């Protein structure tokens, strides 16, 4: 790996470059939010047509694993936030430690999710599966469950790759700690967390009362 150069074309100062990187990331996050927004709209509109079916499907999900994953992802976000703050303060050990913790927690999220998917299939919780027969709308809800968690899982994977790559570069001292890329990767990770914050009540908490 080559060291990452500080100042790229076409920028005149690294400070402006940094602000642009963060701003660019925010625009991208806005775009991502609309991607999930579109899917959540489809979810909400379909749920409005089949409230009872969606409640029944919500009851069928594994709330323990869902809650555990929510906590894992929130904590992972915490670790990354600490890492980014520490990187700004040039506290190398805290920054790298935070990144590592964030990465491990993110991996943990995927592992838990994998087990959950596995048991969902075993329980027949998929469109056309045994557990959902005879509940109008529950099939649709289950479609959304797989689609949303699957797409979110892909985003987790993407975020982990990004963070891991930046972390590796920082660890080998090829990327300065205060590089804008690290902060941008952190922002992306937080967005993945925010998406899950909305998926959690929609997919797991519906119909519990």
């Amino acid at each position, binding site marked *: 790996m080559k060291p990452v150069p500080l100042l790229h*074309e076409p920028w005149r100062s690294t400070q402006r470059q940094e602000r*642009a990187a963060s701003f*660019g990331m925010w625009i991208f996050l806005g775009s991502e939010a*609309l*991607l999930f927004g579109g899917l959540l709209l489809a979810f909400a*509109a379909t749920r409005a047509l089949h409230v009872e079916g969606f409640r029944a499907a919500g009851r069928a999900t594994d709330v323990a694993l869902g809650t555990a994953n929510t906590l894992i992802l929130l904590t992972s976000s915490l670790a990354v936030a600490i890492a980014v703050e520490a990187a700004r303060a040039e506290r190398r050990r805290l920054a790298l430690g935070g990144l590592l913790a964030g990465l491990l927690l993110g991996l943990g999220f995927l592992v838990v999710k994998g087990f959950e998917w596995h048991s969902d299939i075993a329980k027949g919780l998929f469109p*056309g599966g045994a557990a959902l027969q005879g509940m109008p709308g529950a099939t649709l809800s289950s479609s959304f469950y797989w*689609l949303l968690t699957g797409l979110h899982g892909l985003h987790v994977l993407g975020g982990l790759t990004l963070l891991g790559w930046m972390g590796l570069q920082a660890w080998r001292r090829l990327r300065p700690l205060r590089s804008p890329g690290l902060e941008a990767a952190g922002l992306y990770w937080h967005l993945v967390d925010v998406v899950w914050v909305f998926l959690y009540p929609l997919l797991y908490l519906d119909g519990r009362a």
Partner: protein
Amino acid sequence: MATLLGFFCIGGFAAAAIRLELFTPAADVMTPDAYNRMFTLHGTVMVWFFLVPSIPNTLGNFLLPLMIGARDLAFPRLNLFSWYLFVSAGLLLLLSLLLGGVDTGWTFYTPFSTMFSNGYVMLAALAVIVAGFSSIATGLNFIATVHMLRAPGMHWFRLPLLVWAIYGTSLVMVLATPVLSASLLLIVAERAFGLPVFDPAQGGDPLLFQHLFWFYSHPAVYIMILPAFGVISEIVTCFARRRVFGYRFMVYAILWIALVGFLVWGHHMFVSGQSLFASMAFSFLSFVIAVPSAIKVFNWTFTLYRGQITFEAPMFYALGFIGLFTIGGLTGLFLAAIPIDVHVTDTYFVVAHFHFIMVGGAVTALYGGLHFWWPKLTGRMYPESWARLAGLTMFFGFVFTFFPMFVMGFAGMPRRYQVYPPEFQAWNVMSSSGAVLLAAAYLLPIGYLTWSLFFGRRAGDDPWDATGLEWRTASPPPRENFFELPVVDEEPYLYHPEATGPHHSAREPHRNQGRNAR
């Protein structure tokens, strides 16, 4: 650029095939299935692989940094990445085409696309999703560039209108495209993994797809036409030697269109079973968005008023644009009115309307812009008389092709039909013959522009005596655009001293934007 040209030719070929088929009322050139695949190909390629990226990716990529006095776009590597994405999307689409094509129409309406269509819908949908990522990347890059890389003194209200237009376009791209990706992802999920989402048998709502689809695809019209507005503003002011009339209102109109463009999508769904209340809301909002478009047309006209108009080829295109866009826009108002729309839905009236906007508007502006900035792009002048000939042919060929469609559409000829009643044949023959003329007009510039690359007269830095920053550097520009970065302390378009219009044949002294460039 060459990539886009390739797609334009593919889409154009499909259009030619359709027009050939429609020459006679019977089905004689292709099977009905092939006809379906042909118009789907035409729509998909032309919308996503030609019109949406046409002006932003060619002129925008090149001119945006030049016009604001920057060395390059904000994220050059992202720009390249976006091109790779675009090409791979194109290859995916070509693959789906070679395997047998898609027969859903460019709109991919469910439940046909998810349950019944036997074409390669998934591949085509994936291609459009990937192309969408490419356009998000481009839009993001443009927004960051306009915010972060303006030359010193280049205030927001000193930006050329093309920059404003591309900025508005980029906003639409970034905010609308992901919703298209979402809706196509749902189709892919339903087809590939059997996850029913829109399936009415399971209680799904096919209309929901239309909502998601048009949330992107109506603003997409503004992705195509806003950059055209920008190009026309630049050309008209330069060849009329007049300041742009109502510069600030032109800017507000662009932003207003970019914003309200998101609120009118339901006018594509008046007959779909959408609620009447929603239809009325969307109808009202569609009338609202006609206002800024009208502001732009009137302001161009006022810019021309008492100008020293010269008829170079770009001006031919620009004037043609104003006329065609006005017709296209006014017929759009007919369509925004629910009672008329119910009558003409899915007829050739609609086809004629959106071709006036997209082809008469966006493509004409692309050709106009290409001629206007050709000297800057290549350092060579194009042959003027050939270009004028092509411009005129394009205008007449276009009207000849698409105007008959208004008539037969209003008389009830439905779109997407291969076989039609014989009373429409006269109009269809007229339209197909016009298409030949139009095709010639589109091919002609490709020939003489290529010729001018090698044998054209060398162009100076500023062949049009224009005021913009892009004319303050060499033609073609050096690798980093400017030898020395410009500083700006005046508005754009100072073609004549303030408060006095040109009043005799001698040219007024004009002030260029930016100092110490070069």
